C-alpha cells in the first residue's frame, strides 16, 4: 500500500508545483498585448475535442540575429548550438529582439502594452548561410478558458475566407514570459 500512496503523493506534488508556479506567474502580469484574429487564429481540433485554443502566428524572421548578436548570447555562428532566451514580441506577433536579462529588456522596451517578453529558443545551424540562426517562440498555442469561449462560439462561419479579423484578444504575459488569455471581444 505504501508505494501506491507514494505514487499518488508524487504526482500530486508535481501537480502542486505546477499549479503554484502558474498562480504566481498570473498574480501580476508583466505585460498585456492585444492581438487580432490574424495573429491569433483559432485552432480546429475536430469533433472529438471541444477545447478551444488559439494558435499564435509568430513572425520569427530574425534578420537582426547577426553574428555579433549571437556572440552576446555566447553562441558561435560556426558551431551547431541551441540556447533558451527571452524573445521580444510586438502587437503584430513579430519577434523584434531577444535577450537574457528581463530587467535589461524592460529598459530597452518600456511600453508593456506594445512589447512583451516570452521564452524562445535560438538555434544555430553551424553551416555557412545568409541566416546562420533562427529563433523559435516556445508557446505555440494558447488555451481559451470556458468564460471567454462565448466570443468564439458566436463567430460567423460565413465570413470565411477571412477578409477582416472577427475578434481581438488580450494576452497577458507573466514575469517569466508565460502567456495566457485574459480577455476577448468580437470585432464589428
Amino acid at each position, binding site marked *: 500500500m505504501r508505494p501506491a500512496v507514494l505514487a499518488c503523493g508524487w504526482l500530486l506534488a508535481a501537480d502542486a508545483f505546477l499549479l503554484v508556479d502558474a498562480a504566481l506567474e498570473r498574480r501580476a502580469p508583466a505585460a498585456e498585448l492585444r492581438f487580432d484574429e490574424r495573429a491569433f487564429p483559432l485552432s480546429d481540433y475536430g469533433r472529438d475535442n471541444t477545447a478551444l485554443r488559439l494558435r499564435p502566428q509568430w513572425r520569427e524572421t530574425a534578420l537582426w540575429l547577426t553574428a555579433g548578436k549571437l556572440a552576446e548570447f555566447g553562441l558561435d555562428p560556426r558551431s551547431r548550438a541551441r540556447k533558451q532566451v527571452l524573445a521580444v514580441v510586438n502587437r503584430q506577433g513579430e519577434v523584434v529582439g531577444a535577450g537574457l536579462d528581463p530587467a535589461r529588456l524592460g529598459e530597452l522596451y518600456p511600453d508593456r502594452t506594445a512589447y512583451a517578453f516570452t521564452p524562445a529558443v535560438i538555434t544555430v545551424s553551424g553551416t555557412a548561410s545568409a541566416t546562420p540562426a533562427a529563433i523559435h517562440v516556445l508557446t505555440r498555442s494558447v488555451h481559451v478558458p470556458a468564460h471567454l469561449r462565448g466570443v468564439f462560439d458566436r463567430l460567423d462561419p460565413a465570413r470565411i475566407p477571412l477578409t477582416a479579423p472577427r475578434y481581438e484578444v488580450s494576452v497577458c504575459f507573466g514575469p517569466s514570459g508565460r*502567456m495566457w488569455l485574459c480577455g476577448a471581444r468580437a470585432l464589428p
Partner: protein
Amino acid sequence: MDEASGRAGAQRRADRIRAFREELAELEREGVIGFGPEQKARLDAHLESVLRALAERFDVDITASERQISWGMRIASTIAGAALCAAAVLFFYRVWGVLPVWAQVAILLAAPAAGVAGMEFCSRRGPSRYYTGLLGILACAAALLNLSALAAIFNLPDSPDSFLVWSVFALLLAYAYRLPLLLAGGLVSAIAFLTMTTLRWTGLDWAALDQRMEPLIGAGALVAALPAAARLRQPDEFPWVYRIVGLLTVFSGVAIGGLNGNQSYLPFGSGRVEAMYQGAGFLVAAFVMRYGVRSGQPGVVNLGAGFFALFLYLRLFEWWWDWMPGYVFFFLVGCISLGLLFAFQRVRRRTRGEPSSQERL
C-alpha cells in the same frame, strides 16, 4: 514461497509439480517405480493442497489449458486497458472545453488517484490480478493526461521533466502491485528522461531523441545493468524486464548509429562513426549472447542472437545489394544463415556439456 519471488516463483513450482506428476506416471507405466495405493493417495492429496494454496495466493495456472487461457486473458486485459484509456482520454477531451478551469483541474487531479484506489481494491478483494493490471494501465494513462492537459490549460512549454514524474509514478505502482507492464512503461519513461536531459544539457533540442545515440545507449545500458548492480529485492520476473528494455534500447541506439554517423557526439567523421557503431553492434550482440548463456537466461541469448543476425544482414545489404545480382545475394545470405545455424548449434552443445560432432569424430 516468499513474497519477493512472488508469482513467477509460484508458477515455476506449479510447473514443476505438473512435470513431476507426468514423469511419475510415465515411470509407473514403464514399471521402474511403483507406489502403493495409500502412498499414492497421500502424495496426490499433498500435491493438490500445494497447488490449491499456490492458486489461491498467487493466481497461478495449474494445468496446461489454464496456462493457454491465461495468455488469452493477458492479451484481452491489455487490449481492454488500451481501449478504456482511449475512451477515458477522448471523453475528457470531448467535455473539457465546456468545463471551467477549476473543474478541469479537479478531474485531472482525481483521475490517477481513483485509478490507484481501484487497483488497491482489486488487489485485496478482486477476482483476478488481470483487473489490477488493467486499472494500472488506466491509472498511468490518467497520470499522462494529468500533466499534459495541465500544461495545455496553463500554456506551459513541453519539458522532459514530465517523463521523470511519469517514470517514478509507474515504477512505484509496478513495485506496489507486481506489474511487469507498468515496470516496462516506467523504465521507458526513465530512459526518455535521461536521454532528453543529456540532450538539453549539451544544448541540443531535447525533443528529438534520435539526434545523438550515446545518451540513449548509456541510459539503456544503465537500465540493463541495474538489477545486477543494485541487487534490489523484487519479484522474480522484474530483472528480466529491466534487461530486455535496457538491451532493446542499447541495440536500437547502436543500429541507428551504424546507419547514420551524424547522430553522435564522437569527434569523428560520419563514415568513421558508422564503422565504429557497426563493429560495436557485433561485439555487443556477442557479449550479450555470452552473458545470457553463462547466466542461464534464454531470453537474453535470443535477443543477442536476433540482433547479431539483424546487424549482419544490414551490413550484407549495404555492402553487396547494389553490385551483386539478386540471386547471388540471397544465395550468400542463405549460406551465411546456415553457417550461423551451425555456430549456434555448437554453442548449444557446449552449454549442455556435450562434445561437438567434430570432437566426437
